[in-house]
């Protein structure tokens, strides 16, 4: 059974016809042709399908596309500004916070959500927040470096943006 839905992904709004059982992950990949969100487990355990919906990280493999109308959906493709990279992306590059990078988009988006909530996380806070994102290659040490680096970059950028009295 199909249904019309309006989805807003990375700032782009589109009217679509989806099956009621289509997951958000399936629709992002097949309709929006996005390759950042990926299936790793199909049951919301690995975080490879993480996207931000109204700034909150969710497992898109467990979300129904038909129920995602009128929300701001952000995938990793929506982070970079033109040719530049978002500070979180730059931090992951600088720190080499990946190996095969299949999990990397999920980690980057989860990091964005974490740093919005807590701009100066301790290593333990990072570990707790990101415990739902799995990396089989085992890049955790460098991912932690990247997240802390990203936090510093964002704090630095915020300091620059703060209006001077």
């Amino acid at each position, binding site marked *: 059974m199909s249904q019309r839905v309006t989805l807003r992904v990375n700032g782009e709004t589109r009217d679509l016809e989806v099956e009621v059982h289509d997951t958000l992950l399936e629709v992002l990949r097949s309709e929006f042709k996005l390759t950042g969100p990926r299936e790793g487990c199909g*049951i919301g355990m690995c975080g490879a399908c993480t996207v931000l919906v109204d700034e909150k990280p969710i497992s898109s493999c467990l979300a129904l596309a038909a129920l995602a109308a009128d929300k701001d959906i952000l995938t990793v493709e929506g982070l970079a500004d033109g040719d530049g990279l978002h500070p979180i992306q730059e931090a992951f590059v600088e720190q080499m916070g990946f190996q095969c990078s299949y999990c990397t988009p999920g980690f980057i988006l989860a990091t964005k959500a974490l740093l919005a909530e807590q701009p100066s996380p301790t290593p333990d806070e990072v570990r707790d927040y990101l415990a739902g994102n799995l990396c089989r290659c085992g890049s955790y*040490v460098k991912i932690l470096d990247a997240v802390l680096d990203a936090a510093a970059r964002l704090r630095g950028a915020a300091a620059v943006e703060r209006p001077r009295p």
Partner: protein
Amino acid sequence: MVVVGQSVPVLDARERVTGQVRYVLDAERPGMLTGRILRSPHPHARIVRVDASRAAALPGVHAVLTRADLHDQAPYNARYGRVYRDQGIVAIDRVRFVGDPVAAVAAVDGRTAEEALDLIDVEYEPLDAVFDVEDALRPDAPLLYEPRLAPQPGFAALVGDLGGASNVCSHFKLRHGNVQQGFAQADFVFEDTFRSPAVQHVPLEPHVTVAEFENGQLTVWTSTQMPHAIRAQLAELFRLPLTRVRVIVPMLGGGFGAKGSLRLEPITSLLALKARRPVKIALRREEEFLTVTKHAATVRLRTGVLQDGTVVARQVTGWYNTGAYADVGPIVARNGGSAMGGPYRTPHVHVDSYAVWTNVVPAAAFRGFGVPQIAWAYESQMDMIAERLGLDPVALRRKNIVHDGDRYATGEELEDIHSDALLDRAQAAIQWRPEDARWLRGVPSGEQAPAASLQRGKGLAVVIKATITPSTSTAAVKLNEDGSLDVLTSSVEMGQGAKTVLAQLAADAADLPYERVLVSEPDTAITPYDQQTSSSRTTYSMGTAVVRAVQDARQQLLALAAELLEVAADDLVTADGRVAVRGAPDRSLTYSEIIRRGQQGNILGHGTFVTKGGLDPETGQGIGSVHWHQAAAACEVEVDTETGKVEVLTFHSTVYAGRMVNPRLCELQTEGSTFLGLGQALFEELVYDDGQLVTQNLADYMIPSFGDVPRRVESAILERDGAGEVHGIGETSLPPVAPAVANAVYNATGVRITDLPLTPEKVLRGLHALRAARSAGQ
């Protein structure tokens, strides 16, 4: 600027962080259909009848594949397999494990394909099944293959002389010295048995294949670590010349050995042939667990020692449970077998290493390739021997460990060995003192300090491992007319940084900036032969081939420049993309100018690197490895004696790399091995119930997360002063992880666990047993 030795950013870093890496999962071809596989619900059964007529009639279904397609008149083979041709494209006479492919469908989308699977009727006649090696070797055990299969040509020696039909798939023998004589000399002989279960690689990207088969040309995009081997095996299967089979491999989302043989390619290719459309099969996670695993193994270790701790003799019997199909099981059993003595100088070593067929998911290559199972045995036993002799386990290792000039159990003379440095680092990392061994602490055996429920302990382990020998890598380079360099290589990028490292080596050899080098993805139509991306061989083997290719191109460049500059080629030097006359830097040309003025179009260079060796099939003597990979692990754990939970506080890996090309990538690989090892040490285990896998998703089978990362994780990667020879490090740090943790758990609690994983239940059972023994003794 020289880039070898620098942690330069990875070549495709931008794509990695913007989600733009293309995996096979992302491959699309015009008119592509979706394939799905119907799998056996029985661990062992005769297939009585398969009727797929209702599935074929379903609208949207373009092809159905059953054993009916594998008849004698078909223009392709029915079966494949490296060592034995035991695997049907789909099951033919029998199914041999729960999950064994019985049929497949290609349809317009996944849902239609699933519906079609439900319409395929299969009638089975269940047979008795065996799931572990003990049962499979009983005289009255049901046999998976009857009569005995003959191995493929060239593999008879590997498989050995196996006699009449049984479930033994291969037998590796190693005979070094005279083990009976050795035991006669020994003051003590200790026999212990160690077990490790099957585990799954869990690459986050599952196996995926897209196949296109038209006009006698087969093209596959597939998640594999061995493009040329896959090409050759598909060519044989479909009776095509190599030129008519093309294998393309973009980036893999993890491999770890899972993607090392034919997997989905045969089914997908045959569906594509039948449907006359491209077909894609991407496994769901549950299916991934039913496709390939690591070998479960039982290792019985008999070690003879003198009173002072000198190891004089070792007799080892190892059984690797290779599951329903042999795959590379016999090669795994040989690789593990040749290293069963451990990194210890032992004059008498006798090894029998068997691969055995059983009715579980086929086991094949897994990071470490047979060595983790035996390192688990010999490094656990070293500590047990140390206790029995009242010795410091580190001192016991130092006493016996191999050095340059020692003869290994394979009879070869060892060189470039750094055991003392590895042990020094491991010992220092956890500040090991003799009293850290609980039997040297003045604590009676089995006793533990009564009050505190949290007990700490330290442990370490050291391992030596071969890299596949003999082996061959070839590479080509194209120096383009703008002075940029294309490196054509079939080495597969799967996160280890192969492309980056090869670009660094090529850049320095070509005297070009790193940014001017591009590395291809493997495409067997274009990129030349490489044996495989595994066995930690790429930086060493392909790296050497690439450097030789660049040197070949450079020679041609200098010859052209010599003509243009009117000097002898010997008087020329290269730097920064320019060729100049030595001592007269203003007399120079850019690479681009030389190529254009010489009307070359481009300069092609090629390089080949072949290593020689191999082991005698009767004695296991010969050259086991072109050079040996060496690592040590040291850790401190804290055990909660009320729950049995083991927390790893500190983990330190030391590995000998010879020369690092990209240090940060080396750290990533070493840390990656640590976490893979910790998962297996503490909780990873495939659990079967009467042949049915009950751990088939990432909720029931958990892999390490951030929550499992120890407080302190460190790696020390040792290089040799001067130009050390590159030693691969992709696997080396993995085998010592589990025994280091088990030794630490023992020193913390007095509980010795000899079968992985070290679960809380096992720790608690051990503690209860100790308490009961104490009470009984009082």
